[in-house]
């Protein structure tokens, strides 16, 4: 029992994921700063941000709107992201949970943060948040199908196995990315992750210069700290999920730790570069992009897998 609790709450669970997420957030901001000729924040800045919001800043509640739902949404978003994170990290570090359908559960849990953003935004009663929520909704509709197709393609590649451990085990001889379909899926999943993380070019739900942080406009203090925590967690677990799906796993023992760190840093670097070399697109353009182009590439990848490429 003690061992399970340790798995879930310390390593590789809650604490490990949250701290690594914070470090990755610093890495993302530092790379951004370098790309923009700035100095960038100190190493502990994400943690200062989080703790200050959590402990020091005042939490202001909207006068109109449902306060309970408004406050519950960030809690649910952290819970959802954390559950997904634990389900991803536990098999990644080689611990056998005996749970064979975990990839499906992870797929569902990964949508919870976006859904709770919508709920929280609509509960705040702010018109700008309502615009943000409607954009987030449209964005989810557009990228979820693509993400589902990509995950389905990986499952097909793994011989219809829906267990993370099987997928990792199958890639010990060679990662899935070493094939044409694998490269196509990598592109699709990277862009879907960009949308899931709400990074430019798909940050229209918070679009600072249009709707002033849209969905999150009414959040402050500890409620906003939880949203920030969710973002840190997502910034870590999505790259790890991609590592497991296509790049041959995320092992943290012996020499593998170096490769795992490089994989995650590389993926986040790619995300950061995409977000710094593109303007924000409009929601209609994002929908067209995912519905037509990304779905097309995912389906091509599936067809290629059927023919064995």
């Amino acid at each position: 029992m003690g061992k399970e609790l340790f798995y879930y709450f310390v390593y590789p669970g809650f604490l490990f994921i949250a701290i690594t997420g914070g470090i990755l957030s610093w890495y993302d901001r530092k790379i951004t700063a370098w790309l923009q000729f700035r100095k960038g924040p100190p190493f502990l800045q994400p943690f200062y941000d989080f703790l200050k919001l959590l402990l020091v800043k005042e939490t202001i509640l909207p006068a109109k709107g449902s306060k309970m739902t408004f406050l519950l949404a960030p809690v649910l978003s952290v819970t959802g992201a954390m559950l997904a994170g634990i389900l991803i990290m536990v098999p990644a570090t080689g611990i056998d949970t005996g749970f064979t359908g975990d990839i499906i559960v992870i797929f569902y849990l990964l949508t919870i943060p976006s859904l709770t953003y919508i709920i929280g935004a609509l509960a705040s009663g702010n018109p700008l948040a309502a615009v943000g929520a409607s954009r987030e909704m449209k964005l989810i509709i557009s990228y979820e199908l693509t993400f589902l197709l990509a995950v389905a393609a990986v499952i097909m590649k793994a011989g219809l196995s829906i267990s993370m451990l099987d997928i990792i085990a199958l890639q010990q001889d060679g990662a899935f990315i070493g094939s044409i379909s694998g490269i196509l899926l990598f592109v699709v999943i990277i862009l879907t992750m960009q949308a899931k993380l709400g990074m430019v070019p798909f940050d229209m739900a918070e679009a600072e210069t249009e709707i002033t942080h849209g969905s999150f406009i009414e959040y402050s203090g500890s409620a906003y700290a939880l949203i920030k925590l969710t973002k840190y967690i997502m910034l870590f677990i999505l790259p790890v999920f991609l590592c497991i799906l296509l790049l041959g796993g995320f092992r943290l023992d012996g020499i593998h730790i170096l490769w795992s760190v490089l994989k995650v840093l590389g993926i986040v670097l790619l995300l950061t570069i995409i977000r710094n070399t593109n303007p924000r697109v409009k929601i209609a353009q994002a929908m067209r992009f995912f519905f037509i182009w990304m779905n097309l590439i995912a389906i091509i990848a599936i067809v290629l897998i059927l023919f064995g490429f």
Partner: protein
Amino acid sequence: MSKIIPIGPYHPLQEEPELFKLYCEGEIVKDIKWETGYNHRGIEKLSESKTFDQVFFLVERVCGICSTSHPFAFANCMEEIGEVEIPDRAKYIRSIIGELERIHSHMLWFGLAGHFIGYNTVFMWVWKYREPVLDLFEMITGNRNSYAMFKIGGVRRDIENNKIGKIKETLDLIRKKTDMLIGAVMDDPVIHARTKGVGILTKDDIINYGAVGPTARASDVAIDVRHDNPYAAYPLVNWKIITAKEGDVFAKVEVRLLEILESVSIIDQCLEGLKKEKEGEIETKVKAIPEGIGTGRAEAPRGEVFHFVKTNGSNYPERHKIRAPSYVNIATFKKSCIGQTISDATISLAAVDPCYCCTERLASVYDKDTGTKVFGGEELIKNSQQKTREIQKTILRNEH
């Protein structure tokens, strides 16, 4: 039912206080109303209590970014009244300052436009390359902004010939970097997707709304005070008016970027002209300004700046009227924003490079039939004092 999406009074899109109310149905903007008046400073009235030499420093502060175009227009105006002819060297220096200002103002706008569409890398890069221009200003005038260079009859400081080399070096850098930016932006498909066909103003719209500056030139209306009513050294150098046909946001980007290159070329020619003139001959002594009225125009980075001054033989203006370019340009929002999505409307708002503090005006309402004043400055002050007292009362009540 339409809901109101407010842009302002505090909003990351605009640095200045103003309020745009977008009446939206879903994401589509159905109507737009705007309120200014957060920033009125009564400069025209204040100007009447200053001597002509002091007015230069006052009008310089009408706008922080185009801070030389107002003194420029005021100098043109006073020299028209006094029939003063200024030396060629002063003309060249005035044009150099004016064009350097255009370069830094267009770069500032371009960076901000990048920021508005979420492209912060462009914002940081462009502002980095804008910095040498400000350094140049510091070298020439002693100030990075609000240069205090103009006076009636000439300029206050000379650009010594030994500084020309350094200025040319910086200009080469700017030209190189602008070429790089043009290459990077003009071919970026995502920027095309965001700016092409957005906030279109046709030629007729421009003429009907009386828009000026790059906003007009991007819709193929070739108006430019430097060309239509030549002043300073502009008739002495070769340059052309940059226009674009489409009238959308992309055309405005294009016009401004190409104008940077044109300005660099103008400054280059002015520097050549400066070498021919004798150092130190930078002003004509003006003893007094006679009674009369005059108008002065200058092409600010945002469009035409217009000054009207009535003098009465003393050394104070009797009436000073200023019209800044944003005053006419922001009226085009009615045309460019309605029917667009919120994303497009916000970049259309920013595309005319609006400057609200230049534009603030106080209006008095007169009865049409009787000619009596219904509502004017005094009533507004009374209203404001009344409101302050009420707010004080509420605060006191809440504290107890």
